[in-house]
């Protein structure tokens, strides 16, 4: 039985696909799309699902996440229906629907998202205020703002929080998209082999190199997108190294001779270098997209939903405040450095807490969709 949602197209239109009902279904968008492939056609099929109200079909389409919005479809559409915007709006809609209890709806409303970010910032600010230590103003010591244990525990809690929600929402998404699995059955051994093989394809080609994105025409955008991603990865590595240093390699250094031989300071230096590189490319990427969305000179940047701004601006602020801490340390303005550190923690808290429900989540959903797609491709390649 097929259930239809007569309001589907109205809801999706509100999320950015303003002109899509002009579509007369000629298929030019699908034929021009550099990423469209047999069995995984986009975007016309998605347009039909949306207009017909086939919500389950739409949410079960991994194709939504195979699109990188290069905008070729929108540029050649004879009806100016902007198919690329439909794909984008449908992705926003899926983030809402895949989220636990539909909670992501909050972050797709302008007022609600601002209110919730303010509330989260206040919570983070209060947390810092309540747990703060006595500041050492003669030098910059982060642990004189918040104790090492506190930061450590808070980080761990957030990591568990992210992991649990990501897992639950990933399962929710999988329960939808498994319906678009292609026909055919393989022996269990081949299945496992294919699953692993496609996982590595996704990891190396998609997650680390975004190879599908590079098929889109505009290379500068591909580079900027990759820059944000690698900025994140490098900052994550830098944070981990710093943590290893401060925890004396998880507190194991005292117990093992072999670890004692390592000069612990090298971790700090590495963290510094990697952190600066990661921060720089991350700033480049986020400024590129903020600039593009401000000048609106490209198909994809013409319309920006509130959620796009929240995501971009938070990333930018997190990295910027991180840099400012360093600048204030080097200029001996320690009070300002502490203030920046507090701001950095608040923005990072906002970013991490909201991540599973905002545009940030596209990273996870896209990887699941591409993994699914690569697995299906292996399945029919036999």
């Amino acid at each position: 039985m097929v259930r239809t949602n007569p309001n589907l197209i109205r809801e999706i239109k509100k999320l950015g696909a303003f002109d899509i009902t002009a579509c007369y279904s000629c298929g030019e968008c699908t034929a021009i799309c550099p990423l469209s492939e047999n069995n995984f056609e986009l975007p016309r099929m998605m347009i039909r699902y949306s207009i017909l109200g086939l919500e389950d079909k739409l949410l079960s389409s991994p194709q939504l996440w195979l699109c990188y919005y290069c905008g070729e479809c929108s540029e050649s559409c004879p009806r100016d229906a902007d198919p690329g915007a439909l794909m984008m709006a449908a992705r926003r809609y899926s983030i809402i629907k895949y989220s636990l209890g539909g909670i992501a709806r909050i972050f797709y409303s302008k007022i609600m998202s601002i209110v919730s970010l303010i509330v989260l910032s206040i919570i983070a600010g209060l947390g810092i205020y309540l747990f703060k230590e006595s500041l050492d103003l003669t030098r910059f010591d982060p642990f004189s703002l918040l104790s090492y244990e506190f930061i450590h525990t808070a980080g761990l809690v957030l990591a568990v929080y992210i992991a649990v929600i990501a897992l639950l929402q990933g399962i929710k998404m999988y329960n939808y998209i498994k319906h678009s699995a292609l026909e055919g059955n393989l022996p269990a051994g081949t299945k496992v082999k294919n699953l692993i093989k496609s996982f590595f394809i996704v990891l190396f080609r998609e997650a680390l190199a975004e190879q599908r994105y590079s098929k889109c025409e505009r290379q500068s955008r591909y580079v900027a997108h990759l820059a944000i991603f690698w900025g994140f990865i490098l900052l994550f590595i830098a944070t981990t190294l710093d943590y290893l240093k401060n925890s004396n390699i998880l507190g194991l250094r005292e117990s093992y001779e072999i670890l004692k031989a390592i000069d612990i300071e090298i971790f700090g230096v590495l963290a510094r270098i990697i952190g600066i590189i990661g921060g720089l490319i991350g700033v480049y990427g986020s400024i590129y997209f903020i600039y593009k969305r401000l000048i609106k000179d490209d198909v994809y940047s013409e319309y920006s939903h509130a959620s796009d701004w929240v995501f971009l601006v938070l990333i930018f602020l997190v990295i910027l405040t991180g840099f400012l801490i360093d600048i204030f340390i080097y200029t001996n303005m320690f009070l300002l450095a502490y203030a920046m550190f507090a701001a950095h923690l608040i923005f990072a808290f906002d970013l991490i807490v909201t991540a599973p429900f905002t545009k940030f989540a596209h990273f996870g959903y896209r990887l699941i969709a591409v993994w699914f797609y690569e697995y299906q491709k292996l399945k029919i390649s036999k």
Partner: protein
Amino acid sequence: MNKLACDVVVIGGGIAGIQASLDLANMNYKVILLDSGPSIGGKMILLSKTFPTLDCASCIATPRMAESTHHPNIKILTYLQIVSIDKHDSSFEIKILKKPRYVDESKCIGCGRCSEVCPVEVPNEYEGGLVPRKAIYIPFPNSLPNVALIDKENCIKCGACERVCPVKAIDRNQKQEEVLIEAKAVIIATGIDLIDYSKKIEYGGGKYVNVLSSYQFERILNATHPYGHILRPSDGKIPRNIGYVLCVGSRDLNWGVKYCSAVCCMYSIKHAIMALHHLHDAEITIYYMDIRTYGKGFEEFYNRAVKEGVKFVRGKVAKIEEDPETKDLFVYLENFDTGKVEIRRHDLVVLAVGIVPTINDSALFKAKLNVYGFIERKLIDVDPASTSIDGIFVAGTAAGPMDIPDTITSASAAAMKAALYIERKG
């Protein structure tokens, strides 16, 4: 300055202008028929056949052209430019600039000796540029007036034509000439042009040799075909596999025009049927968004094409690519029946280009244009031949895309309205 006077000036010597002139002349009005080109006949005389009956287009057009040329009440002026149209109380003053042909119209007998000896070859615009013509030329075999003209831009002034002309008609000193015509009414029958598909980069932007416009293919199918057979331009191979792309520039907000060009579906079906008559084993595929067979006998014509083996595939062609070696073409589309993206190979691809108005200077014609640039009809449902200006009438495709029967009906209507207008003014 030369001065002429008549009852009605008809601007545009295509089938609409000719029909309107003949109707008025037969009612005993004096008509001056103007054409910007060197011959009357317009688009129809260059077509192969008409749909849906597959009648020979020139067999219908030529007698009308001849009749209008010989009619005592019709004076034809060709190869000119309209400078201004002014309305004074109850009369119109039309100022025209007759361009020099460099051949004396009164002397030339249309023997064609000059073209034979002319050493200059340039693409023949009447054959869609597929074959060359000479710098001194008669536009097409049944041109009227059947008089040569020199294409000054390409002429090398070698004098070969002057030496062979049996009547010494070549006159290099001809100057352009202003003519002032006074008339009681004006009929605009300026017709249409075809959309220039070079703007569509995805279709090769006019660079692929085996991608033809529908007009070029129309010429190839014509009885006086430029190649003498259906051949493809790149290597002269007989195309066994022809793809036909509909709605090229029509119904396209992106680069073409918004409206439906009204005739492309039908002339494409006609081309497909005619091509199959020549090449029995050819595979012809028409890619369409909608087949609009709105007229009498049109749906039957479509059914006939299906029965005769023409393949119809629903899906707009998004992109055409050329194999640089063989010059074969690959069209990209989403097949609507299967939802799959398909890449299909063709020997020859024909683009059913849409139509646009010839007029782009509304100030000159005074009459109001609609948003698409066609002449706006006063009341489209009850007074389709009148324009925003009393005394100026519109005939044929100057008012919007239409087929030949509609054009002729509209021309007769304009003639009748013009006659009524003159009678009323006394």
